[in-house]
């Protein structure tokens, strides 16, 4: 995943911002415990979103505790506690995604980046094995996604929808693992599907110029639109709108204010920043 699922800090209450940081720190701590302090480098806002959603769905956060940052012992911070395996699951998801992303980079990057990837890959492949053993379902879903993605990119008829489908389907399936009945499963799948689609497409919009130069695959390169930015905005808006519809049908209590903030402000402002190359407002730069 790529780090587009952000909050909009200016619209959060102070206590919500503290809680957001506490989940981020809690997840970071868990990654250190489960894998290694190095995996924390792969920690993204997307996984924080996933962890927070899990905590909220399972009502698994009984409170906060004070501690010190694992990176900077001088910095005090709060950790959101977790009764269940939400953090472990999010950490595993993060490690598995990072591993496949690295493997993918090995195929289509420049010489220096490939060299760097070769250096870190052995570590990640060990952590990846551990994560895959603990959460085999996540492993299968991400691995299938990569296969489907490669197939889609080789097909000359792949349009925007088909290109985004593997990621969207993967995230939809990952979230539906949390469902307790069929109705919930459909709602979670629909929510995950459109968020996943949005992530894939916003990443594609972000990389469009780079991909055009390097002749890499990008679904927007095949679109003939008079105004590309307007087209991207429409496609992305619609994914968010449909994700929001499904989101409305999920019962959330804990962290609802923060998740609402992301849905209503965070994602749209990130989207505008990417599509229109705007400078982001003072934002989540430092957690």
């Amino acid at each position, binding site marked *: 995943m790529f780090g587009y699922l952000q909050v909009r800090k200016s619209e959060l209450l102070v206590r*919500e911002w503290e809680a957001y940081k506490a989940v981020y720190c809690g997840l970071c701590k868990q990654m250190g415990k489960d894998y290694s302090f190095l995996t924390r480098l792969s920690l993204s806002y997307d996984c924080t979103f996933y962890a927070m959603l899990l905590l909220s769905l399972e009502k698994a956060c009984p409170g906060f505790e004070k501690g010190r940052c694992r990176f900077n012992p001088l910095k005090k911070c709060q950790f959101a506690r977790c009764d269940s395996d939400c953090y472990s699951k999010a950490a595993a998801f993060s490690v598995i995604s990072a591993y496949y992303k690295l493997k993918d980079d090995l195929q289509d990057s420049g010489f220096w980046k490939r060299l760097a990837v070769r250096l870190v890959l052995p570590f990640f492949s060990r952590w990846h094995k551990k994560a895959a053993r603990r959460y085999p379902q996540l492993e299968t879903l991400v691995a299938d996604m990569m296969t489907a993605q490669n197939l889609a990119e080789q097909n000359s008829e792949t349009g925007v929808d088909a290109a985004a*489908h593997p990621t969207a389907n993967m995230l939809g399936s990952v979230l539906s693992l949390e469902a307790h009945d069929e109705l919930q499963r*459909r709602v979670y799948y629909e929510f995950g599907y459109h968020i996943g689609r949005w992530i894939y497409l916003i990443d594609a919009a972000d990389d469009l110029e780079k991909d055009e130069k390097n002749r890499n695959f990008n679904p927007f390169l095949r679109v003939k639109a008079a105004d590309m930015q307007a087209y991207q905005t429409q496609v992305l808006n619609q994914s968010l709108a449909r994700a929001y519809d499904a989101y409305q049908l999920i019962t959330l209590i804990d962290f609802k204010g923060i998740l609402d903030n992301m849905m209503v402000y965070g994602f*749209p402002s990130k989207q505008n920043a990417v599509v229109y190359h705007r400078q982001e407002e003072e934002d989540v730069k430092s957690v």
Partner: protein
Amino acid sequence: MSNPYEVLGVSPNASDEEIKKAYRELAKKYHPDNYADSPLADVAEQKMKEVNEAYDEINRMRQKGKGTGSTSNTAGAGGSTYYSNGSNSQFYSVRIYIQRNMIQEAERILDSTPEGNRTAEWYYLKGMCAFRKGWNDQANSYFTTACNMDPNNGEYRAALNNMNSQQHFNYGGYNTGNVNNTGGMGCSCCDICSAIMCADCLCNCARGC
């Protein structure tokens, strides 16, 4: 049935006004119009029913006797009108499959339709299958074709309008202000697009709510 106060998200001590307000917000949130064509329409309908029942239950318990009671014939109506106008079409079975979320079966029938029989309705239903799968881009072009072939058909037009409003954020509750119980999130006076562009306006407005 679960606690009706919990369903409405209010405390049992809430005033009648607060309950009415909470009810209205939820009714707006789950309104069938928000879920037209959505694969989750039935889930929203279910939620709407729960909210209506909870509201009625609370009114009964409080026994106001002012006639504020029953809601069942106002809100929630309209959920059953979908697909009612296609019962005599040649693609009747396709519509049934779509209604039941059996998209693969629907697509199989559509794809086996010979080129010559691909009417405006065929394009509309292809679009609906794509839409249900989340393939919005394809859905958009099928709906557009259907509308161009039969510009006077209200059903096709409605589907295309629904696409347009999603593409412009006016759909999906971005401007309905139904989240303001979580602390200053609501913004009913401007839609989210313009709200983001003029962050100042939005701040003021959100604080005001």
